[in-house]
């Protein structure tokens, strides 16, 4: 049976079974010392990369390299944090930026580490898979000549014929679990060793190596599916006001990002309308308890359907999932200019700033009649307003029991015509002037639903018509999701099998006795396991007990816990402490 071992793997399980000559392949001085050549160097580099030590190093590097992503703000998750960091650290910031510390997980060095790690993994796993596939079809290794050097031991003498003993041992090992009949535990061979000596050689636990390989290959599959998903995905955010609709087209999204291989034309044109939004809060702590968005979904060629979206319960539509990510109030206001024309009418989303939904927003009123100034109304919406002190209002409840709009007024040029994209939640005050009263104090408007107030400086009037809700929806489409899940679960199953399925070899030899035992049969047995296996000795005892039912107590020579991975091939019974550096 051929074996493959990555450089540096310490594995007595295969080493013991092999003739010692095979173990001398690693690191010995080569007899032919001429130039290595390019191919030689490449082979050397590959062997280094696939060695256990380098894999270990890369794993630790990966762990260390992942840490800065939590210490520095990341562009992908927290762009304002990055901007703030750059302002606060004018000297170190740009350097950190250049070195990729604000995008650690897509940086060159992070990618290099995990790609090298995966290259190392593939280089190690593929040959092992080949060997394992051959091994799975193979037979258990022949009974070694000396059984005394294995971690689990057993023996007895009996009056039965050697051949019967070996056959019985083989039958015992072959017998499956009581709860899973028809599946043999051990693969067993019975050998006639000559001179009347018979032996049974059994091996079980191919699942252990299978699980190990499945785990590693599934990790590769996971990486590939995640990367494929990255290329084919799209993700968009849209703010939908109560009573309004939303169509799944790129123009309808507030933000939209897509993978390099995604075709925007393939977006399924379903529409979604927010009918109602329910929220529930704890009456005492005011913490949120439940959010439900009732929507009408119309998929192309289908009847409109009533659906709900909740946190943790996304809606599936058109191959995408629709998540409820946020909510708030969008005051419905109408602004008439000085000429009495409607300059603005609509619901303006105000973004909640705290847990009582003190919401900030901007109403931008363009000039519709000639000669009018543009108006910007900046301020807060308080869902339940309370005057804490004269002129000082705050919200006391996230529910809209007594809503109040508190606005200051700016006039001038909103900058809408500059061609520069604007943030709809911020007012560019550079070309505007704030309205003040006769004393020079800032004018503040307080408006309740249904009320109409005059704007200062004769700018017109403002009517607060109503208070619909809005929801922030997040749409994501990732065709690789099922693959990601399947590979993750495969990796999990493989890992569990590779750690918990015992890999054991058991040998039972029955030889005609000599000397005092002349005329009887001397039975010796040994067991070897991969890794630490406390069940090895009990299992050997069980096999012996079942093989020799009339024997009361098989004499156990070494009642110790089985262990093998660390043991020296030639002296597994030595008492060298495990931690001794070698």
């Amino acid at each position, binding site marked *: 049976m051929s074996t493959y071992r990555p450089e540096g793997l310490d594995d007595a399980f295969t080493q013991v079974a092999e003739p010692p000559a095979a173990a001398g392949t690693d690191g010995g001085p080569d007899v032919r010392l001429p130039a290595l050549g390019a191919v030689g160097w490449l082979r050397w580099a590959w062997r280094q990369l696939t060695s256990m030590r380098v894999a270990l190093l890369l794993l630790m590097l990966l762990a260390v390299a992942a840490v800065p992503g939590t210490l520095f703000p990341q562009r992908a998750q927290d762009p304002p944090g990055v901007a703030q960091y750059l302002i606060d650290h004018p000297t170190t910031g740009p350097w950190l930026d250049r070195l990729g510390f604000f995008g650690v997980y897509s940086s060159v060095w992070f990618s290099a580490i995990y790609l090298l790690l995966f290259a190392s993994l593939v280089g190690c796993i593929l040959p092992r898979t080949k060997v394992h596939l051959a091994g799975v079809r193979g037979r258990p290794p022949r009974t070694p000549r000396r059984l005394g050097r294995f971690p689990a031991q057993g023996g007895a003498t009996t009056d039965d014929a050697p051949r019967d003993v070996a056959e019985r041992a083989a039958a015992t090992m072959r017998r499956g679990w009581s709860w899973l009949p028809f599946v043999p535990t051990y693969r067993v061979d019975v050998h006639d060793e000559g001179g009347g000596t018979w032996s049974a050689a059994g091996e079980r636990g191919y699942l252990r190596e299978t699980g190990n390989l499945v785990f590693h290959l599934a990790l590769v599959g996971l990486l590939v599916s995640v990367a494929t998903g990255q290329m084919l995905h799209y993700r968009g955010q849209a703010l939908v006001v109560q009573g309004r609709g939303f169509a799944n087209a790129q123009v309808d999204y507030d933000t939209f990002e897509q993978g390099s291989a995604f075709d925007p034309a393939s977006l399924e044109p379903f529409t979604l309308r927010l009918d109602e939004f329910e929220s529930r809060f*704890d009456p005492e702590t005011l913490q949120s308890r439940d959010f439900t968005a009732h929507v009408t979904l119309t998929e192309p060629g289908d009847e409109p359907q009533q659906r709900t979206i*909740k946190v943790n319960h996304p809606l599936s539509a058109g191959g995408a999932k629709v998540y409820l990510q946020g909510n708030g109030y969008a005051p419905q206001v109408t602004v008439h200019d000085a000429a009495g024309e409607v300059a603005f009418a609509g619901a303006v989303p105000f973004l909640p700033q705290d847990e009582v939904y003190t919401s900030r927003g901007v109403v931008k009123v363009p000039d519709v009649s000639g000669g009018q100034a543009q108006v910007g109304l900046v301020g807060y919406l308080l869902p339940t307003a309370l005057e804490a002190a004269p002129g000082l209002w705050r919200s006391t409840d996230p529910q809209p029991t007594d809503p109040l709009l508190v606005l200051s007024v700016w006039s001038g040029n909103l900058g809408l015509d500059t061609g520069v994209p604007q943030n709809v939640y911020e007012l560019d005050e550079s070309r505007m002037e704030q309205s003040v009263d006769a004393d020079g104090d800032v004018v503040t408007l307080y408006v309740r639903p249904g009320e109409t107030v005059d704007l200062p400086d004769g700018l017109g009037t403002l009517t607060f018509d109503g208070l619909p809700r809005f929801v922030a929806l997040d749409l994501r489409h990732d065709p690789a999701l099922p693959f990601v899940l399947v590979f993750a679960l495969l990796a999990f199953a493989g890992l569990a099998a590779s750690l918990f399925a015992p890999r054991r070899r058991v040998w039972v030899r029955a030889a005609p006795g000599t000397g005092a035992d002349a005329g009887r049969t001397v039975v010796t047995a040994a067991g070897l396991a991969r890794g630490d296996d406390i069940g090895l000795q009990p299992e050997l005892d069980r096999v012996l007990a079942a093989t020799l039912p009339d024997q009361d107590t098989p004499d156990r020579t070494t009642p110790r816990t089985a262990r093998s991975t660390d043991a020296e091939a030639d002296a597994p019974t030595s008492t060298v402490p495990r931690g001794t550096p070698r």
Partner: protein
Amino acid sequence: MTTGDLSTLLVWAAATAFTIALVAYAVDLSRVADAAQRRAAAKTAVPATVPAGAGGGAAPAPEPPADVPARSARAEGIARSTTYLGIVLLLAGIVLRGVAAGRWPTANMYEFTIVGVFVAVVVLAVVQRRRVIVFVGVLVMGIAVLALVLALNAFYIQADAVQPALHSYWLVIHVGVAIIATGIFTVAFAASVLQILADVRETGPKPVDAPRAWTDGMRRAVVGPRFAWVDQVPDARELEALAFRLNALAFVLWTFTLIGGAIWAEHAWGRYWGWDPKEVGTFVAWVVYAAYLHARTTRGWSGRRAAYFVFVGYAVVLANFTVVNLFIDGKHSYSGL
């Protein structure tokens, strides 16, 4: 008294029971250390007296070395019974906490800690069932008492319902499995600490690798008579096997925590992986423990060196729970604590 108050009271009672268990284990450990020290002293004293006695008849043995009881049965009995009592009290406290909140009690740091302590102590009780390894008892009980008191004093918040993002059966599965894994990692860590001590004593006073002054001093201290009790614990190899079995189990559970968390994140946050600080911490711990599993089978890295990976891994697990929750903003920051 409300159900929530009763739960808190029960947790305090459990902390008290565990403190008694800790003291009992410590007394037992001191007995073990004492006996071991006396035995070591006797061993060195005997050769010195033999030449003198050779001239003037049989000299009396300085100490009866062999028949000193190595451990205190009474202390072990007390430790065991108070451990069981504490487990029952803590379980009752956890159940009542869940009743008071009207949900599964794994939603904040306080609940995570008390359930984690519960798991760690149950694992300890299982490990100690056959053979009492006193030092592991002292270390795990020490961590348990510390964690419980810290939870009661620093992490405590009123039992209450949770925000919409936590309304999911994954709160039971994902967080529950994470807690179980953390508890098992704790006991495995204790076994690894003991393994290193035993290993250093077995290796002897000679600095074999890295002959640096401070490690040398530490090594000499461990080899000295103060740590003679280490000779009473199972040998380094057995402890390593114990630590490995626990770590392997916890690692599989940790893997499930990662996968379950990703599935939940896909439902709740609209992405299965987003490098949230908690996700990164869990990932780093996973990678470190994976490195540990690889180190065990790498020539020259098994044994003591592999145990260092356990130290790093456990430190990451703890930091991922405390530092990431308390000082770093992320999507896992619920309820402030």
